[in-house]
């Protein structure tokens, strides 16, 4: 047997053996993922039970014809208004954040004006400074601005908090766009605003989508700020609503779990439609570290 054919056989064996030995890997992955997904499974199956069914049979789902859909009626009634508030805050703040960040990123990417560097370092410094000490003075600031117990407070804080990261990412992206495009647009007499709408936004749509989702997720999951800012029940966001739900209705687990399900459904729907954006956004975040 010649040298070449030995290599060929070895390569074939390597490929063949790899395929043959893939099932233990799948087993390990499924085992870990099963444990990781256990909370979601429990939430799903308990949400269809009442307390006695849960106590006699905590682990396994009921047969579909025994499901208590009235739990969900309760869940929607309870969580629905909170979801409305949260969707409002998350959409408005994510859109405004990214709009303003795009403007700022456009400025930094295209022009080098006097003071540009100073202004840029004002942004960069915040990337490094932790915000932990801010929460107490922020509360006082909102109090003196009469913004306590309003949804606007949450929106402006989210907008301010998102400026640095989004501007940073968008600036890098806009800098990589070909200059000819902007020059051609300028010859045609396009204003800066038109250039942003017609060049920057279409060309960086994927990154804008990813940033929008990240910022939306951040608002959706936040509960510390709403908990400090909001007092009135009508204004509660999902986070505060869930905290109060957890405190009040300790008895009916089926109803609580169905409320949790209802709280998760909007994001699950978004996730199904933008799975690629989620996976890519997280992978990009991971590479950036």
């Amino acid at each position, binding site marked *: 047997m010649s040298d070449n054919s030995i290599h060929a056989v*070895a390569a074939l064996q*390597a490929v063949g053996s790899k395929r043959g030995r893939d099932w233990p890997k799948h087993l390990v992955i499924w085992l870990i993922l099963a444990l990781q997904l256990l909370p979601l499974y429990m939430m799903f199956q308990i949400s269809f039970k009442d307390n006695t069914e849960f106590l006699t049979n905590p682990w396994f789902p009921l047969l579909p014809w025994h499901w208590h859909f009235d739990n969900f009626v309760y869940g929607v009634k309870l969580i629905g208004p909170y979801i409305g508030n949260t969707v409002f805050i998350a959409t408005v703040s994510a859109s405004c954040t990214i709009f303003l960040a795009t403007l700022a990123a456009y400025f930094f990417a295209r022009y080098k*004006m006097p003071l540009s560097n100073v202004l840029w370092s004002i942004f960069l410094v915040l990337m490094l400074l932790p915000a932990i000490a801010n929460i107490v*003075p922020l509360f006082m600031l909102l109090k003196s601005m009469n913004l306590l117990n309003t949804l606007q407070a949450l929106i402006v804080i989210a*907008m301010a908090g998102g400026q640095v990261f989004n501007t940073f990412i968008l600036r890098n992206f806009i800098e990589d766009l070909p200059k000819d495009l902007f020059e051609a647009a300028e010859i045609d007499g396009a204003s800066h605003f038109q250039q942003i709408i017609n060049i920057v936004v279409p060309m960086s749509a994927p990154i804008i989508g990813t940033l929008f989702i990240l910022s939306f997720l951040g608002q959706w999951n936040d509960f510390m700020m709403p908990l400090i800012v909001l007092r009135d029940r009508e204004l509660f966001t999902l986070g505060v609503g869930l*905290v109060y739900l957890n405190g009040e209705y300790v008895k009916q687990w089926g109803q*609580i779990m169905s409320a949790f399900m209802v709280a998760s459904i909007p994001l699950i729907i978004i996730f199904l439609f933008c799975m690629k954006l989620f996976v890519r956004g997280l992978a990009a975040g991971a590479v950036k570290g």
Partner: protein
Amino acid sequence: MPATIISTRKALRQWHLYLFVVPSLLLIGTFCYYPAISAIIHSFFDWQGSDQMQFLGLDNFKRALADPILRQSFGTMCILVVANFFKMVPAILLAVVIHRLTSDKWQYWYRVLLIVPMVVPGLVSLFIWKFFFDPNLGIINNAFDLLHIKHMLVWLDVNWFHSGTFRMDAPISWLSEPRLIIPSLIFWGFPWVGAVSVFIFLAGLQGIGTEVYEAAELDGASPFQKFTHIELPLIMTQVRLNVILMMIGALQDYGLQFMLLGGNGGAGMKGMVPGLWMFNRAFLAGEFGYACSIGIILFFLILLMTYINNKYIRVDK
């Protein structure tokens, strides 16, 4: 695209360009810089939240250094950080196994499955875990009964530790028994494979080509040798990055402790962490000035971590 340079004289005519950054600057000035500066100033004052303040000099910081609860909270935090080292193991294992799969399709779908728990609001998974820990209804106690782990724990306790933590006649109360609070916090989120950390490790592993594996296989390397000689060295940067991110997270996160145990950190304040103590002093005790000074101490610790991260960890960037 290189940025167009605009000279000072030209800038006077094109001043309106600055309007593009003004909104962002106003926002971060008001809601990021002003509170930070205000926190520094107020950390030197006795401030109960009103306009009246009394200058204390460094008294707040002296008090913080001597504060037994703050010390205890840093101890708790250190235990949680050390535990987090071991909690990285399943994420590394999972990333390596996913990376070794030959099928790209499966790799993609496992990533999707990893993200699924992230789609559920963080609070919901937090409360589901709180429900798992429930002494009477929680499924952890249920599983421990089914698998006879409780018998074992009681036997160990009676014969070896004599702490009286585990008793046959009472359900294990994970979150209200002081001795069990820290173990519960550590166990929380088992098996600890968050999408972000797995993705960070996967990003590090991506650099390894198949030919490296083929070469290793020709040399007869076992799967474990492949891990120690190929994969682990390549993800060491990511491991160190994860460690730093984790320590920064431990310094500034207190939502978990607040939600599971309440503003006082549970029975005996066992679950108190520094961030929660700051929150507690400000919003439960009304000592805003003292809370600011705790915040400033945490601020400098996080800054130190970030500095170490940028200086020593991200050398390859």
